[in-house]
């Protein structure tokens, strides 16, 4: 049974795309069949997952005209993507004009329901949908098609304000999709050593949420150099850790053979920080799946990552 999880906040730059890619990669590496849907017209998911620029036309036509979705298969093992792109700018206009005429539109869910992994009769286990912050119609369309919502936020006031925006859109979308459930809030871009600040932000978030959902215990640390390494090479956090390990082995071999190394394209991040970042994503993916299982009253062991 597939679970559709939207990643959204009313503010940009809070880590939605990076978090979506990281969680998807982590879940796929753990053996789940995962589909990522990028509903952002900026299409930045391609930088995180390392595929070429796309128009997003297929996704746009699926939403407005019910056309079949074109899936980019095998971006990683067990990980497929429906790419976003500039064609998605047209969706909001189409929705508004056709809505004003009283004409109905299919939305995202029918096309999504028809997509299956290649070469198997089984379904995806997890569908993660990245959303644009400044396109309320696209965001509501995603909410109308999702089972769960995760809200990433940074610790600054503006990011917390984005929570209010997304809460209003969430509540409005429940008129169309009453089953939509807030899975939790994830702290993203946390600076190392700011324990007291994080404790305060976490308390403020819990108070703001009023018990409707948890603030995830796992948070994603801010590591500028690792972020640059990942996006410039299209690497996921656990892959950056693997690259560091391979790099380390190569250095040791060169030392043994007394040959000179080639540092022309060296990594900016350190191996220890890459490992910690990969650990953050693994912990958050664990927590996300545990939260889903808890809400569905099933033992966590069934799909443990």
């Amino acid at each position, binding site marked *: 049974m597939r679970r559709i999880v939207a990643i959204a906040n009313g503010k940009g730059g809070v880590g939605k795309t990076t978090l979506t890619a990281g969680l998807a990669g982590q879940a796929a590496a753990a053996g789940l069949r995962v589909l990522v849907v990028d509903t952002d017209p900026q299409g930045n998911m391609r930088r995180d997952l390392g595929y070429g620029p796309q128009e997003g036309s297929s996704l746009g036509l699926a939403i407005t005209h019910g056309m079949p979705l074109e899936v980019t298969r095998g971006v990683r093992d067990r990980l497929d993507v429906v790419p976003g792109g500039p064609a998605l700018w047209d969706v909001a206009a189409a929705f508004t004009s056709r809505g004003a005429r009283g004409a109905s539109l299919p939305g995202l869910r029918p096309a999504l329901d028809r997509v299956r992994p290649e070469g198997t009769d089984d379904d995806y286990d997890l569908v993660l949908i990245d959303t644009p912050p400044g396109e309320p119609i696209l965001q509501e369309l995603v909410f109308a098609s999702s089972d769960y919502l995760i809200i990433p936020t940074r610790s600054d006031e503006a990011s917390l304000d984005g929570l209010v925006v997304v809460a209003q859109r969430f*509540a409005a979308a429940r*008129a169309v999709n009453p089953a939509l459930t807030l899975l939790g809030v994830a702290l993203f871009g946390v600076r190392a050593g700011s324990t007291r600040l994080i404790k305060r932000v976490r308390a403020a978030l819990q108070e703001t*949420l009023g018990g*409707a959902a948890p603030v995830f215990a796992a948070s994603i640390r801010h590591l500028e150099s690792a972020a640059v390494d990942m996006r410039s090479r299209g690497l996921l956090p656990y892959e950056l850790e693997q690259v560091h390990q391979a790099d380390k082995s190569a250095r040791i071999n060169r030392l043994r053979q007394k040959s000179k190394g080639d540092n022309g394209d060296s990594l900016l991040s350190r191996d220890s920080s890459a490992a910690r970042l990969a650990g953050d994503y693994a912990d958050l993916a664990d927590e996300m799946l545990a939260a889903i299982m808890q809400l569905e009253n099933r033992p966590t062991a069934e799909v443990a990552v």
Partner: protein
Amino acid sequence: MTKSGRPNLGGLFNGTTPPERSSRISDALGPPSQRPPSAVEPDQVSQPAAVGPRAVRSGEQPTAAPAQAEHRWPGLPRIDPVRAVDRYFEVLQAVLNLNHAMALGWANAVKSVSGRVLPRR
């Protein structure tokens, strides 16, 4: 509001507090069990009762107002002016968006044409 002055969003997330604005897409998609199979007639647009349930806006009377209006003026059609105004501005926004897209397309086309082909004085 919470003790620290932040808005309490719990009600919005668990469904006990209605949103300030109704869904922008609910009319186009329709509620889950009653999605229209084809286009809705345009003349039904200004009659909320024919479209199906929707979230209540802040400041609106959720249930009693339409029934009272019918009772008070039985011969008159029921029209929701808030909805009509909302729709009018949605159309304006759509026209603006389309003009924006067309103008951008035209500008991009002009930009892509070589300087030799463009008329010279």
